[in-house]
């Protein structure tokens, strides 16, 4: 494992009471629970939310406008854990809807803190095996033709904690919160590499960050020419510092560590540099006694986001089993959901246009009979790859595979409606 601190997030363990339901405002008996409503019934409302709820909004003028939108005090999604300079913070998928991750809730992983970079002095240098080594300012990068594309980024260590040390109180945030999905804007590497003129001998490029880790990864030129971007915007505005401001490399479908943040340099080479992050880290020990290197592509995977821990089902009835599915190869072809621990599988609904290399929502309407249930989801991608069972994954990858965890997850629903992570 990488040196990820062991901090676990604070999590509400308040039990549902009928009073809490009434106080939290507006849960109608029999209504289909959205994630936020499920959150509302699973924990006490915050003091600010309680105070707001006591005022009749039709009898008092509302608040004046402000220069920056803020969330309702009833909605409190948060990254967790926080305060680490060398570690990661995870996206609260159990509190989110749709597929686009709000920029301030995008997971981050940094190797020596989040740098503060002045975009007027930061530059990108492309050199090495090129005809014309060039230095670009951030303003110049934005003068190139731009593209806007939606892609996920998943840390290749995502899911490791839940695999190595599963605990019933883990939420989707703790289990698989190191993946996020964003509408990125930037310039294609194909454009930039045509500008500098890549020599025929160049097969790899070393991407280097301008943070305190000066982190480096080697990327095949083939990928750079195919669909790689240098992005300067996420969800319509400049990147957040934690996500690489002012620019990061984006390699759609490939492991997050390679999407080097705070990018300052690309050196075209005829071999990989064998940096620390592609040798002693981000390689996969295999049960046959080898270590798999350059395992760039993220595998097909799905994650139920509700109902899960810490949600609570108040009564038997209809509930949508919702989640996200993604793959680093093509797009999601189907997602099946099992409410009974894998005995029966049912096709989930996918959107009419399934995006490529992006989080895809799935939903399956499930009628809970009030008995214990085991919820699972299984994704299949357009290459035919099927998300493996936990047993199959363990057999193929061992007990300490390091990275690239994509086994099927299980959520246990108890007769009282409480839900725990089942591994």
């Amino acid at each position: 494992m990488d040196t990820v601190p062991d901090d676990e997030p604070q999590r509400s363990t308040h039990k549902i009471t009928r009073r809490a339901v009434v106080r939290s405002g507006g849960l109608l008996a029999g209504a289909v629970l959205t994630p936020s409503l499920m959150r509302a019934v699973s924990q006490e409302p915050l003091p600010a939310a309680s105070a707001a709820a006591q005022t009749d909004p039709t009898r008092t003028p509302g608040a004046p406008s402000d220069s920056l939108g803020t969330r309702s005090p009833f909605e409190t999604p948060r990254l967790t854990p926080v305060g680490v300079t060398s570690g990661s913070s995870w996206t609260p998928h159990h509190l989110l809807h749709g597929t686009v991750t709000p920029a301030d809730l995008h997971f981050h992983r940094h190797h020596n803190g989040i740098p503060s970079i002045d975009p007027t002095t930061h530059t990108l240098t492309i050199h090495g095996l090129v005809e014309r080594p060039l230095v670009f300012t951030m303003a110049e990068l934005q003068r190139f033709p731009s593209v806007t594309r939606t892609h996920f980024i998943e840390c290749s260590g995502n899911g490791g904690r839940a695999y190595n040390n599963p605990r019933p109180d883990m939420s989707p945030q703790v289990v698989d919160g190191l993946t996020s999905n964003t509408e990125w804007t930037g310039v294609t590497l194909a454009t930039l590499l045509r500008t500098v003129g890549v020599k025929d001998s160049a097969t790899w490029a070393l991407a280097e960050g301008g943070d305190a880790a000066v982190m480096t990864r080697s990327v095949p030129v083939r990928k750079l020419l195919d669909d790689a971007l240098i992005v300067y915007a996420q969800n319509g505005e400049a990147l957040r510092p934690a996500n690489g401001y002012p620019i990061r490399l984006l390699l759609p479908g490939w492991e997050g560590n390679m999407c080097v943040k705070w990018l300052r340099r690309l050196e075209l080479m005829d071999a990989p540099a064998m940096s620390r992050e592609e040798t002693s880290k981000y390689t996969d020990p295999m049960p046959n006694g080898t270590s798999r290197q350059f395992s760039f592509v993220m595998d097909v995977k799905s994650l139920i986001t509700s109902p899960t821990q810490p949600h609570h089902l108040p009564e038997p009835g209809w509930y949508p089993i919702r989640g996200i599915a993604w793959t680093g190869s093509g797009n999601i072809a189907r997602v099946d959901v099992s409410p009974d621990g894998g005995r029966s599988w049912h096709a989930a609904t996918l959107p009419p246009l399934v995006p490529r290399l992006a989080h895809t929502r799935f939903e399956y309407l499930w009628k809970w009979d009030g008995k214990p249930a085991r919820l699972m989801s299984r994704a299949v991608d357009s290459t035919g790859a099927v998300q493996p069972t936990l047993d199959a994954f363990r057999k193929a990858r061992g007990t300490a595979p390091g990275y690239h965890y994509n086994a099927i997850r299980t959520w246990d629903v108890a007769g009282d409606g409480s839900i725990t992570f089942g591994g």
Partner: protein
Amino acid sequence: MRRLHALPLALPLALLLPLMLAGCAGERARDEVMFGLGRAPEPAELARIDIDVTPNGDGLPEGTGVPARGEIVYREQCASCHGANGEGIRPSPALVGRTPAAGHVFALDPGAPQTIGNYWPYATTVFDYVRRAMPLKNPGSLSNAQTYDVVAYLLAANGLIAPTDSVTRTSLPRVVMPARRFFVPEYRSVAR
């Protein structure tokens, strides 16, 4: 890639096409493709950021690393996080330790520490990483001489060179790393 949907554009484009093709041969056409953006880097600024060291030794400076000197650097700069003998202090990883008796079976042994001695496939990576990123609280602060010395110390502590050996830009790429033969590229990364 954007597609042109607007029909009125088709005619002017058709007229321009011969001009665009005609320009392809010359310098002016290259400016068109390149948008005239970017400037050539100054040699000094390139030298300042081009700090990577690769397995063939490219990027290594002149110098000689001596384990005995490196032990002093290690004690002053590294031991507070990585332990007096490189055993690691969470969350800082262990740096010293040879391959377990059972072999390269890290996938089946969650407790086996992955060290320079048993999991780093290239000695040049140690120089590259230490110089760019260590020590964590003062990254990039070690001189080339200090980096050479501490790399020599770490290699000797792992039994990869003798305590009396030294490392240079020619010898470091030749240090045999036990882990190297266990690394295999994943099939999708080598397929073309």
